[in-house]
């Protein structure tokens, strides 16, 4: 449904007693420049610091007192706020979220306290080897475009950003045409439409121009082997390459490809590197999709002495598929596994709301409807063609994090 102010909503009906109210806002790390690194994430924190009708922490208080949970998350391309609650509190939840997003107060004192919290969060994040590794991976694979930007942000920016800058950023991005509200659960459509109309539907349209931050260098993603050193106990590595963006049909194939490579214990990389050759302690492959570019990334954890073996074996397994394809049986097993993962993601009200909401918000609402059928129709040739198209030894990235002092596992 679309409202006069260009706000959109979708309703996902089910019989559950639990309901979810989710709001997607089109602002994330890709919208930031260097002097704003982490502002979307900081703003997400500050939205909980009080609004016109719910000052201080009374928004969280109201929701928790009704037996619900409220939280938010920032990503590269959007920020999401959600409430999971018993179905009889949907209307109250919509009102609370609407007030928070339309009338935040941003008290100066609260901003200063929250700076310290976020700086602490940043410190914690970079103490984790996987976070360090992923940040380096994004910086490298997306070196020419804003997808390289860190979501969590820079301590310097968080420490110094003024209330005026925060407010301006909020006014620029928190506008109804950049929002989608998703209601998932058992509810009366008319009542809910009316309340959305009276709340989110009355948000004023944005007047400030959004700067299009999307630039891309042609020279990105040439093969790179980067090693960083940190005081860790084990070796960590991401092997990855660029993939289709969210609008391309190849994304269905991408979900199968990562399943075949490292999606479960039956997958090729797991069998080869974990079970047979014992090169890794853990290995898994993932497909991340964004508006401009997606990526396939393979995460491995290993004894540092095995790093070269891991690299070579991953390349060998991918190149084998390109040369010889896969068995029909393997493809079918992968399809089944992908379908059950999809089913499991729809088991909760939040899962249903998030999955449908995400694909609507990313302007590919047909994805969900087509998903099972598209997966069913994928052939071995499609898998081979996908890898030929996106993978090349000239474009593969290996970003590793190794112990500062070589530490062999005994």
């Amino acid at each position: 449904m679309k409202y006069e102010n260009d706000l959109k909503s979708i309703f996902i009906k089910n019989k559950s007693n639990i309901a979810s109210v989710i709001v997607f806002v089109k602002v994330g790390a890709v919208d930031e420049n260097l002097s704003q690194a982490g502002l979307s994430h900081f703003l997400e924190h500050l939205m909980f610091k009080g609004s016109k009708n719910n000052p201080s922490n009374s928004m969280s208080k109201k929701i928790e007192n009704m037996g619900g949970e409220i939280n938010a998350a920032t990503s590269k391309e959007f920020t999401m706020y959600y409430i999971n609650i018993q179905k009889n509190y949907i209307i109250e939840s919509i009102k609370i979220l609407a007030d928070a997003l339309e009338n935040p107060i941003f008290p100066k004192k609260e901003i200063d306290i929250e700076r310290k919290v976020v700086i602490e969060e940043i410190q914690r994040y970079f103490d984790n080897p996987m976070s360090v590794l992923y940040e380096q991976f994004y910086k490298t694979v997306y070196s020419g475009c804003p997808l390289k930007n860190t979501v969590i942000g820079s301590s310097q920016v968080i420490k110094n950003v003024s209330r005026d800058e925060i407010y301006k950023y909020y006014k620029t991005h928190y506008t109804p045409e950049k929002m989608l509200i998703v209601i998932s659960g058992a509810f009366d459509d008319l009542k809910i439409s009316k309340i959305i109309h009276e709340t989110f539907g009355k948000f004023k349209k944005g007047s400030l121009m959004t700067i299009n931050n999307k630039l891309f260098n042609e020279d990105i993603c040439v093969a790179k082997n980067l090693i960083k050193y940190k005081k860790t106990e084990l070796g960590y590595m991401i092997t990855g390459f660029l993939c289709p963006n969210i609008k391309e049909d190849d994304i269905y194939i991408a979900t199968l490809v990562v399943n075949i490579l490292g999606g479960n214990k039956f997958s090729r990389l797991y069998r080869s590197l974990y079970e047979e050759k014992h090169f890794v302690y853990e290995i898994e492959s993932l497909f991340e999709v964004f508006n401009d570019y997606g990526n396939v990334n393979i995460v491995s954890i290993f004894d540092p002495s095995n790093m070269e073996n891991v690299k070579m074996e991953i390349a060998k397994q991918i190149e084998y598929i390109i040369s010889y394809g896969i068995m029909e049986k393997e493809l079918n097993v992968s399809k089944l596994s992908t379908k059950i993962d999809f089913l499991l993601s729809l088991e909760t009200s939040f899962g249903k709301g998030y999955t449908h909401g995400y694909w609507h918000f990313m302007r590919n609402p047909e994805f969900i409807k087509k998903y099972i059928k598209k997966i069913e129709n994928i052939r071995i040739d499609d898998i081979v063609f996908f890898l030929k198209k996106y993978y090349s030894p000239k474009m593969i990235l290996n970003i590793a994090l190794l112990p500062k002092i070589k530490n062999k596992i005994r």
Partner: protein
Amino acid sequence: MKSFMLENNIKVIFHKTSALKLVAMRIFTSVSVISENRDNSGISYFTQKLMTQSTQNRPNEILVRDVANIGAKLYGNTEYDVTKITMIFMSKYFHEAVEIISDVILNPKFDSKALFFEKQNVMAVLNSRKDNISEMAHDEFIKMFYGNNTTYSRTIFGIKETILKINRTDLIKWHNYSYNNSNILISIVGNINDKIVQSSLSKYFSRVPDGVKSKNIIFDVKLDKNIKIEIKSKFKQAYIYSGYPACKFGDQNFIKTSLISIILGGRMTSRLFVELREKLGLAYEVNTIYPLRISQSYFGIYMGLDKKNINTALEKIYEVLKNFRTKKISELELLYVKKNIKGNYFLNRETVKNKSYYYGFFEIIGQGYEYDFKYLEYIENITTHDIINIANEIFSKYSVNVVICPE
């Protein structure tokens, strides 16, 4: 909700759902870390890990293939008091799934080569815990709190010295002890007909042999002074992990203590969260933990913070706890906490996986699956008077405080 016994006296609890065509099946055993001793620490984890790798009928690649052929997920988990083997699958593959999981339970291979490599993996897991500040703090805390002679003082993976010694014969013996008819329970939740459940389980699980009932050691921790240790680490962040002795599961004060953990931590409006994060900005993560244990438990408080704020945070925690045990909470605060617990109870029971866990867990540790349905009633009966009494009992005792500090 139904429960029935198989011919060989294995209890099955079954709850039929009506939503998606999915089933979660869990085989619980009451033999776990709590049953171990200093010489075989880690054996419960190894046993379940190797059980899910190969059987006498299915080498690893065949087991993995058969599980994949029905799109199922098969895995094991070891906790301190129970271990479980879990399978999640589509309803239409019920018979196939039961046949596979029964093979895993009845006929594990315990391949020596696999054991050798699994030992290396566990060593790596133990090392990787040192790359994570919260795991490191937890591991140091349990060592200090439980002392050297209790099973809860070690991680579920065991310790390096014993891991290296565990052999195939040890695993076979431990398996016979753990997965016999006296010690296992089957918990199933899903959209499947109960007759199918009964016939399939009778066919495959009636062959589980007789065995000795597990005897778990129940122990107490008595601290005779406050303990504080500071550990230098490679991390930039500092970390506090503090804990007080608290009652075990099944004790009359258990539910009251779990309610206290929600008043103090775990929510955006919990007292420690508000005082330490919202008012002072000292931490991003601040929370409480009250592990559900059949022997001595603890009431833990943990937070990550900047080194310079350690003393301020410890003083503030002390102040919040002192205030909590000297001033009764209001009826209104208690009412809202109860409402929050009720809401979260339903939120946590949306999936077949979670439901099969809660029902099975309460049954295997002796409270009966009905405990899960009575839980909210027990919560409802708690008074403000109960809260202040229990708070005084817990927080006037000595505590253990682990502080991880950057080098």
